[in-house]
């Protein structure tokens, strides 16, 4: 069980905000932090890792106190059993891929895990290369592997899949699922991608105005119970064009682009990039087999 009760005043680009996080999380689960940029998602991860000190509060991980402002306990990052995957990967340029992983070994730890991770995350061909020669996706795989070497109890992934193309994203999602299954760390990740969140995580916490909302089920979070539809998808608005008296809205559903017609009143509050639900009532889908 991970218990977080944190408060921290942050100075972001939009002035200062007070970040408040009260959160309990089952051991071994995967949670996504979701919200606009600058609301304190990365700061929450950094406070968990010990890279930022909360103003007050408590962090208890598996009955071990990592931080307690009242009892003046603040474990250093070295003593917290966390893995952190940084947004810029933070691979050590002076070491090869394999050396990066070996560097992460705890004193006396069995070397075996390095070769095991190289195999699971398919780094065999990259292991003797230096990070500067790798592509973004390859760097992220190495960073993921390295964060797992010392077998952390909590794995923190700061936008692990941003800046990757679709195919790479899906591949990395699979790797994350694979390592979660094998090592069972509790994972907290930051993501903006609805499909990814639903695929990977069991819980989602929205952060809004500095407030971390309680965990919810991702598929419930992105749909709402107020609409009863037979067919219901979450989508992202790509494009809105006016054609005569109606509007044609282009939407990204999963990995497919589709268009729907909307009235002026429908699109009043919508803009490009919004996450929306499209639902259809009272129609019967037909199933065809495609050769």
């Amino acid at each position: 069980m991970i218990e977080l009760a944190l408060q921290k005043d942050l100075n972001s680009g939009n002035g200062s905000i007070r970040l408040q996080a009260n959160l309990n999380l089952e051991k071994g689960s995967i949670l996504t932090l979701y919200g606009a940029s600058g609301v304190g998602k990365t700061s929450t991860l950094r406070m968990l890792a010990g890279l930022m000190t909360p103003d007050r509060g408590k962090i208890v991980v598996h009955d071990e106190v990592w931080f307690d402002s009242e009892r003046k306990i603040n474990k250093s990052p070295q003593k917290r059993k966390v893995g952190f995957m940084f947004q810029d990967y933070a691979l050590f340029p002076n070491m090869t891929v394999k050396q990066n992983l070996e560097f992460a070994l705890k004193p006396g730890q069995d070397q075996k895990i390095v070769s095991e991770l190289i195999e699971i995350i398919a780094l065999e061909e990259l292991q003797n290369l230096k990070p500067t020669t790798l592509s973004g996706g390859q760097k992220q795989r190495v960073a993921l592997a390295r964060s797992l070497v010392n077998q952390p109890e909590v794995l923190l992934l700061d936008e692990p899949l941003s800046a990757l193309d679709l195919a790479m994203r899906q591949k990395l999602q699979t790797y994350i699922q694979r390592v979660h299954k094998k090592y069972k760390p509790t994972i907290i990740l930051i993501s903006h991608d609805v499909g990814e969140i639903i695929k990977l995580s069991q819980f989602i916490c929205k952060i809004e105005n500095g407030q971390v909302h309680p965990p919810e089920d991702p598929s419930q979070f992105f749909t709402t119970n107020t609409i009863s539809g037979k067919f219901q998808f979450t989508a992202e608005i790509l494009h809105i064009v006016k054609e005569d008296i109606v509007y044609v809205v282009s939407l990204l559903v999963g990995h497919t682009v589709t268009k729907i017609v909307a009235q002026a009143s429908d699109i009043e509050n919508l803009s490009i990039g919004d996450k929306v639900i499209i639902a259809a009532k009272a129609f019967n889908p037909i199933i065809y087999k495609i050769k």
Partner: protein
Amino acid sequence: MLDWSPLLLTFKLACVTTLILVLLAIPIAYWLAYTKSSLKPVMETLVSMPLVLPPTVIGFYLLLAFSPGNAVGAWLDQWLGIRLIFSFPGLVLGSIIYSLPFMVQPIQSGFSGLSPSLKEAAYVLGKTRWTTIFRVLLPNIKPALLTGIVLSFAHTVGEFGVVLMIGGNIPGKTKVASIAVYDEVEALNYSTANTYSLILFACTFILLLLIYGINGGYFKKIIR
């Protein structure tokens, strides 16, 4: 026959100074690069002072401070038996102060140029500050270290004012090459002055060519 002792003394002084400076400048540069202390500007100013102060001013104050007629100088003389003025250790001390910015500044900007997440990543992986410095930070600022080392060495070879003030002009003891050149010109021995000058000219040229070549990656291209 050319008296080689000023040249040998110059290179001995430059080697000792550079070695001590590396050990001294790394902690200072590390502190300057990562501190959030309000003392940082004061420290930065002190480190940079030798860049703008006339060397004679530094030499003059060192001379005053360490002369046995003065409190500090008397104490050193009495208790430690060290007399810094007109001696080689005095030259080394003067050169360290004089060349300090040339070592600290490249290393400091090397540290600052590294992504802060490298250090944080090493900490999260459970590594101590020392391991992080020696295995992650320093190996990734090798060009900055090399620049600092060569600049301090070359700068020490080229100093004149500080060594003249604190060291005087004692042959074989404190008479370095730059002073020897001045001496020979005073004595109208232009050809000897020219020999010393040419040697210094060639050495500094080669040294600087080496760092620009290595840091620019030209040698790798030639070797390949």
